């Protein structure tokens, strides 16, 4: 009763959503894995990326310059925060980290509103990526979303390469297992931490710009995404890039399909309006239920080491 193209389109949508969540979660999970830091302000970096992109696009008219600016601005903000604040928090408990990063959200959100005002900013996708592509099976799908999926998967592949093949990756892996050891063999651990934090921030800023151009660029846009990224990390296992990828796609597809299927399911025995409302209510809880289920059987997440 549900057309195959609709299901196929929703699977693509779920994938695209998942890929975007991965960009957010990857930074969070890296920062946690290497430095043991929980960063609530990661959503602010997402916002900063989107605002930087929108501001540069409105000045120069070039989306690609804006995208570059989003990477640069988020990475710079990340590096700055790491060097001034986070550095003092690595040796402290998670409580202090939660508080300082919560305070940072207040500072970033209110500061952004101060600078840019309360209205949402304008940001649109570049004309070269507008329009739809005809996919096999008679499905017209927005080109931009296909590009997001491709870009996200490319970033994922790049991250795996980085962590498993390069010198920086070796240092990251060493940092996960033994901080003193890499300090002893002469790696500049401070620079390493700043680099990792800036990398995570740049990924978040990139996600903010890419998604901001199809949604809206406004203060507070990062917070719902941040909480979803937490769910992804909990499901995937903290510190694991692979876990973040699998978790993100699982969350993305579950959420999207839940929104489609649950109202339809309730529609078989409820009035349309009631079915739509009840189905939507349950769909909004679905990924949290998924998280609870996975936690029940695997408290450390799918790819986590130990809880």
């Amino acid at each position, binding site marked *: 009763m549900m*057309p195959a*193209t*609709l299901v196929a*389109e*929703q699977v693509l*949508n779920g994938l*695209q*959503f998942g890929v975007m969540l991965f960009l957010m979660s990857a930074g969070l999970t890296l920062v946690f894995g290497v430095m043991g830091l929980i960063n609530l302000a990661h959503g602010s970096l997402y916002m900063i990326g989107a605002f930087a992109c929108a501001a540069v696009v409105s000045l120069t008219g070039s989306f690609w310059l804006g995208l570059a600016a989003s990477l640069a601005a988020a990475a710079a903000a990340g590096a700055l925060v790491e060097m001034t604040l986070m550095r003092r928090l690595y040796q402290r408990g998670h409580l202090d980290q939660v508080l300082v990063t919560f305070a940072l959200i207040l500072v970033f959100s*209110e500061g952004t*509103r101060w600078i840019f*005002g*309360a*209205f*949402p*900013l*304008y940001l*649109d*996708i570049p004309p070269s990526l*507008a*329009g*739809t592509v005809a996919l096999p099976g008679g499905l*017209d799908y*927005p080109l*931009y*979303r296909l590009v997001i999926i491709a870009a996200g998967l490319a970033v994922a592949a790049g991250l795996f390469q980085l962590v498993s093949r390069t010198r920086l990756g070796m240092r990251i892996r060493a940092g996960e297992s033994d901080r003193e050891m890499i300090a002893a063999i002469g790696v500049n651990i401070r620079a390493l931490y700043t680099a990792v934090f800036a990398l995570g921030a740049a990924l978040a800023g990139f996600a903010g710009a890419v*998604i901001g*151009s*199809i*949604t*809206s*660029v*406004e*203060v*507070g*846009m990062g917070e*719902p995404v941040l909480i979803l990224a937490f769910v992804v990390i909990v499901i995937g296992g903290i510190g694991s890039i692979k876990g973040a990828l699998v978790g993100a796609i699982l969350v993305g597809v579950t959420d*999207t399909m839940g*929104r*489609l299927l649950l*109202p339809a399911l309730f529609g078989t025995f409820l009035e*349309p*309006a009631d079915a*739509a*409302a009840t189905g*939507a*209510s349950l*769909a*909004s809880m679905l990924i949290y239920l998924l998280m609870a289920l996975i936690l029940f059987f695997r408290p450390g997440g799918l790819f986590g080491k130990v809880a």
Partner: protein
Amino acid sequence: MRALVTPVAALVLCAASVTASADGLKVGMITTLSGGGSALGVDVRDGFMLALDQSERSDIEVVIEDDQRKPEIAVQIADKMVQSDNVDVLTGIIWSNLAIAVVPSVVRQGKFYLSPNAGPSKLAGEGCHENYFNVAWQNDNLHEAAGGHANDAGFTNSFILAPNYPAGHDALTGYKRFFTGEIEAEVYTELGQTDYAAEIAQIRASDADSVFFFLPGGMGISFMKQYAGSGVDLPVVGPAFSFDQGILNAVGEAALGVRNTSQWSKDLDNATNQAFVASFQEAYGRLPSLYASQGFDTANLLISALDKADVSDTQAFREALRAADFSSVRGDFMFGPNHHPVQDIYVREVIMEGGVLTNRIVSLALEDHADAYAGECSM
């Protein structure tokens, strides 16, 4: 200990310095000035203050407080304004949920409340009150007009969507109340949702000939941008909220040509409106929005009542408000029996004008439209 003593002492002092109101009128404005949605509050405030400035009256004092869009905060501010500031009239609330939290309690304490934006059905029907006046609309109005417009446009099968919260349910109910065609599907999205790919996919797969949506704030921006890029080309109708001046710039060209319903537009042809648009632009350097027009009308209604009666004479002041004897930027304006507007609602089209996106009126959707709940109100 010093750290605590000092603030408390200061608090006591600063509260003590607030004095009771002198003769004239004291207005308490509770509106959203920070956080998400503050753009609307800022516009209401600016429109309201512009009218006061133009009236050059010195006997109206205004206390403005930011509710941060949080109902608890709004309730606390209302308590403060009633208990400490001794205001006579309250106004300013943008959001229905905040209005429901604040209004019933303040009007029962003998204060007047003039709503410049929110018009929840709860306060229009059984929950109406003689001290509560809505100067904007009952929430369903613009959606009802959208339904009426859909009939005129010859649509026979609509795909309708709104966020899953009470105002969203009201919106779809309002549309269905006037739309005579079929409803292809009725979809509730998550409040605050930003990605509508899933809903657009359903629209694409449907047999609808039109789409109606109510997605206020950032939600509407996201939806319109994604809809425009999706290749789905069904005509869209919606209430003015997603196509109004403050937000149009963020939606961008995706909004061009979209029909939306509103009780006001900057090209409404009356002298009051043209003067308002010009002076607002001069005073604030931007085009006025729907919300600014509502704030402006609210202040003028208040001034007109004060001209006729003293606020201490509650009965007379209420009658003066009910008369609505002021020159509205909407042209004709009167209150129905439940103190909600009876007014014309127009269909506007988003156009590009001198490089700026804005609206122009294309037709009249509903004439002298009152709300569906007036009959349930007994006062």
